[in-house]
């Protein structure tokens, strides 16, 4: 009953079911009720990693190489553990930059370079073609086998006949039609395909169920559990080594290399990037996906070894290709329903991969290769023509559909040329090594700002060349399309250039060999060339955006709008609308305006609103990719098209302005400080001026008083010659005294002026202070005797040497002693001179038991012309300069002068001199 018609109908029904799921998913998404916005669907969609390679190929590989298939799934598990750190950052960046594909991602990182994007696209397409052709091969051989049901007929090893008799060709066409229906029904700004993701998740369930079902059937229905299979195998010494590491073709190096490339494959295969990054709804889903997806891998691999070994035992030497065990075992047992389930499972594994991979690749080809080229050509032909076209959406879709068809036809071509001569896994691994070439540029670029365009181009280019030389070209040679001598003897017969043993590296299998050559060279060139070359402004800008993706809050403010010139908001909206449709564009811009608090009309200039043009650019980039979006935006600027130099200028200018204003700020600050100082100095000057005026008026007043009395008494003496001799003598005495006072005053004023002007000739010498104080007390003894005041000296018995101007210090002491005498009561007064030696200074104190000084006078006593003007009764009057002069002299010796006094109890004057 299981014939071609039944199979065809069932497959058609399955495809219809898939399509309705996709349709349902799209409908729900339009209504805003996403069915894929949960971590479970997300995890299942990532399981698109498991393709026909896993479904059929793993068993085939295990039948030959034991557990050698496992690194392909252990690597992704290791990587999944790091998703929370690495993948979350990639998703964050992609969301912000509106990344549409892996080529767009790498290109954007390296300065939105069209060259990098183009190179990545070419590597991706050429690298993934073998992988897609693998799926074609798997589906077509499954059909071939089931077609002969219940007979077990292996499909012929080489394809003969015209291609229109070939099942694979029609499968390729069918898949192209299917992918076009799935992936290009409409164009979304985020390049997301909700319906497709829902369908892929469904396919992941189907293939898991089918595979586990056949695994359980073989293990428990055909054998008595896994122990039965394992014990039968270990009994056969030939097959027993399949249970150990000895079965691996390249040993531990191969195991490690496969782990490494599958770690990068899970992130950087274009279709994985599509489902994990582009189709991601919420990066919180990673929390569950990072263990759910590895769990899925574990489940689907659990029965691979039992299946493979079971198949070996069942078909012992019967000429059945191990790659078909999954299908042929149930067929051989006549289990029709299970055979059908396996066929559907295999088809779902293959179609899932083909659909996602082709959509991802076609997005790249149309956005990064076709669009920029076409846009540039049309721009050159008719500079304004582009904007006249009303709706570019259809044009984009046409490009996309064309790309899908081209890619699938190329995959079919590869299948026809090469595919038949290889096992499934070997074909897939070739693609893995190609995808691994993206890892250095992405990972290094995400964490090191120094990585630049030149480095990325060098690394990717070299990695791709090595891949081509060591894997792709030999494959063509082996299939007879290139001379086989180049593989066996090396290029031009040079043994060192053998593609499978480059520079004498002979001990490895082909895949491991290619990995160990391409990845280190790629990484080395990326880093060294980056270090040796300059990054331009856009590269630096993008490097910051990528590396600092998690610091967006602050980084956002510093972003520079690279578009210069004037474009109206309405023109910008019109341009965006050609890609997104009028409604979406207007909505998006209104939202932006609302968020940034501004309104716009038809004539508003876009540049005055920060990031508005870049926002528009990103909207377009969401549909046609970053490189093309730049070309589109540049059409708005016509003659003002941006080139790198312009950006450099803008950034230079900005940094110059920043620097200039910084300098200005600094200068202003310095001026402020200076002004403050000036103000203080001015105040001081004003005070000094006031003091000078005061001084002059006081001095003239003090001079006039004795002069007046001298003049008046002289006039009396002159006008009255017959004055009694007694009176004449009295008057003359007054005149003499006043003259003395006058000359003393003038001397003091001169002294003070000299001290103030610091023009005294100081005669500093080692002097015995004790002797000095004795001399001073002798000098005033006359005065003290007259007033009957007791003067006592408390001086050390030894010499106390100080470096001082002897005469001046005597002057100070005499001044203080005579002051003390003045304020003591005649008869009862007692004055004491004391010299004490302190740690760092010598202190002379002169104490009296006089009337004391009121507290309010104590502060100003050392000012000029200050006199305690109460109760002067009969005491000799001073000039009021004595203490000021003393202060000047002591301070010149770096000493201090001060007093302690209590009214009516006496005063104590101190002056200190530093010890030398």
């Amino acid at each position, binding site marked *: 009953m299981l014939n071609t018609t039944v199979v065809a109908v069932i497959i058609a029904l399955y495809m219809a079911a898939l399509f309705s799921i996709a349709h349902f998913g799209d409908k729900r998404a339009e209504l805003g009720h996403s069915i894929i916005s949960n971590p479970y669907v997300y995890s299942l969609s990532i399981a698109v990693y498991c393709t026909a390679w896993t479904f059929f190929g793993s068993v085939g590989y295990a039948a030959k190489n034991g557990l050698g298939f496992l690194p392909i799934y252990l690597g992704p598990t290791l990587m999944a553990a790091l998703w929370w750190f690495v993948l979350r950052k990639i998703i964050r960046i992609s969301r912000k930059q509106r990344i549409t594909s892996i080529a767009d991602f790498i290109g954007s990182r390296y300065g939105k370079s069209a060259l990098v994007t183009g190179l990545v696209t070419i590597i991706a397409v050429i690298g993934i073609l073998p992988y897609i052709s693998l799926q074609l091969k798997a589906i077509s051989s499954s059909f071939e086998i089931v077609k002969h049901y219940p007979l077990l007929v292996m499909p012929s090893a080489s394809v003969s006949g015209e291609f229109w008799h070939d099942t694979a060709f029609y499968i390729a066409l069918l898949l192209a039609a299917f992918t076009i229906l799935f992936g290009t029904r409409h164009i979304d700004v985020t390049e997301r395909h909700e319906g497709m993701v829902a369908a892929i998740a469904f396919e992941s369930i189907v293939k898991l169920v089918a595979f586990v079902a056949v695994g359980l059937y073989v293990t428990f229905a055909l054998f008595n559990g896994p122990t039965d299979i*394992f014990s039968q195998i270990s009994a056969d010494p030939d097959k027993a080594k399949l249970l150990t590491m000895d079965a691996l073709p390249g040993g531990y190096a191969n195991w490690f290399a496969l782990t490494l490339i599958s770690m990068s494959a899970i992130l950087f295969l274009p279709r994985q990037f599509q489902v994990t990054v582009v189709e991601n709804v919420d990066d919180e889903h990673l929390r569950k996906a990072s*263990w759910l997806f590895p769990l899925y891998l574990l489940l689907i691999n659990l029965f691979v070894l039992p299946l493979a070994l079971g198949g070996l035992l069942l078909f012992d030497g019967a000429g059945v290709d191990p790659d078909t065990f999954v299908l042929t075992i149930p067929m051989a047992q006549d289990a029709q329903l299970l055979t059908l389930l396996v066929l559907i499972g295999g088809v779902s594994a293959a179609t899932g991969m083909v659909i996602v991979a082709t959509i991802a690749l076609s997005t790249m080809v149309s956005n990064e290769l076709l669009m920029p080229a076409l846009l540039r050509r049309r721009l050159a032909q008719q500079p304004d023509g582009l904007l006249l076209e009303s709706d570019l959406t259809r044009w984009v879709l046409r490009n996309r559909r064309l790309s899908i068809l081209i890619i699938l036809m190329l995959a079919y071509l590869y299948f026809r040329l090469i595919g038949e001569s290889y096992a499934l896994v070997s074909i897939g691994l070739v693609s893995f090594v190609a995808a691994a070439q993206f890892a250095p540029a992405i990972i290094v670029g995400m964490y090191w700002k120094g990585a630049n365009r030149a480095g990325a181009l060098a690394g990717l280019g070299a990695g791709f060349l090595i891949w081509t030389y060591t894997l792709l070209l030999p494959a063509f040679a082996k299939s007879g399309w290139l001379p086989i001598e180049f593989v066996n003897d090396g290029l031009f017969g040079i043994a060192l250039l053998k593609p499978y043993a480059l520079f004498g590296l002979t001990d490895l299998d082909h895949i491991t060999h290619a990995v160990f050559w391409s990845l280190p060279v790629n990484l080395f060139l990326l880093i060294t060339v980056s270090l040796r070359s300059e990054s331009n402004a856009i590269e630096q800008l993008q490097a910051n955006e990528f590396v600092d993706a998690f610091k967006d809050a602050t980084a956002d403010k510093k972003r520079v709008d690279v578009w210069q010139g004037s474009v109206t908001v309405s023109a910008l909206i019109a341009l965006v609308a050609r890609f997104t449709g009028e409604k979406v564009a207007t909505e998006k811009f209104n939202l932006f305006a609302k968020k940034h608090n501004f309104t716009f009309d038809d004539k508003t200039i876009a540049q005055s609103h920060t990031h508005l043009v870049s926002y528009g650019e990103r909207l377009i980039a969401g549909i046609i990719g970053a490189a093309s979006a730049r070309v589109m935006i540049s059409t708005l600027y016509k003659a003002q098209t941006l080139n790198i130099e312009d950006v450099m200028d803008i950034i230079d200018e900005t940094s110059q302005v920043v620097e200039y204003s910084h300098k200005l700020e600094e200068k202003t600050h310095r001026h402020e400080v200076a002004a403050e100082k000036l103000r203080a100095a001015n105040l001081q000057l004003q005070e000094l001026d006031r003091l000078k005026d005061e001084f002059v008026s006081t001095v003239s007043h003090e001079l006039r008083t004795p002069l007046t009395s001298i003049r008046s008494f002289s006039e009396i003496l002159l006008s009255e010659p017959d004055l009694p001799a007694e009176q004449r003598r009295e008057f003359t005495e007054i005149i003499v005294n006043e003259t003395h006072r006058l000359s003393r005053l003038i001397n003091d004023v001169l002294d003070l002026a000299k001290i103030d002007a610091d023009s005294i000739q100081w005669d500093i010498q080692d002097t015995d202070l004790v002797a000095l104080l004795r001399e001073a007390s002798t000098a005033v003894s006359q005065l003290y005797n007259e007033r009957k005041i007791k003067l006592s000296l408390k001086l050390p018995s030894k010499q106390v040497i100080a470096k001082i101007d002897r005469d001046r210090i005597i002057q100070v002491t005499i001044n203080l002693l005579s002051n003390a005498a003045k304020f003591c009561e005649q008869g009862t007064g007692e004055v004491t001179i004391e010299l004490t030696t302190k740690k760092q200074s010598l202190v002379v104190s002169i104490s009296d038991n006089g009337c004391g000084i009121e507290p309010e006078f104590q502060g100003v006593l050392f000012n000029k012309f200050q006199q305690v003007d109460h109760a002067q009764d009969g005491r000799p009057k001073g000039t009021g300069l004595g203490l000021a002069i003393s202060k000047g002299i002591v301070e010149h010796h770096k000493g201090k002068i001060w007093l302690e006094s209590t009214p009516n109890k006496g005063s104590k004057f101190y002056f200190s001199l530093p010890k030398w």
Partner: protein
Amino acid sequence: MKTNQSLTFLLPFATATVMLLLNYPWLSIYSSSTLFFGIPPLYLYLFVLWLSFIITIWLLVDQQTNVVDDSDA
């Protein structure tokens, strides 16, 4: 685990450890065709290690949602 800090940052270390455990010479210890309770030791080792690692990921990523996450830096 009485800490309020997210333990997610431990994951890279766990990954490095498992990466070592999945290589020579660890694998060579189990590379034997003598069955262990009817199961090949290498098969058993790989799948048990795999499952434990999945549980570790679950503990360190999915079970850390209610604590402060500072893994952004």
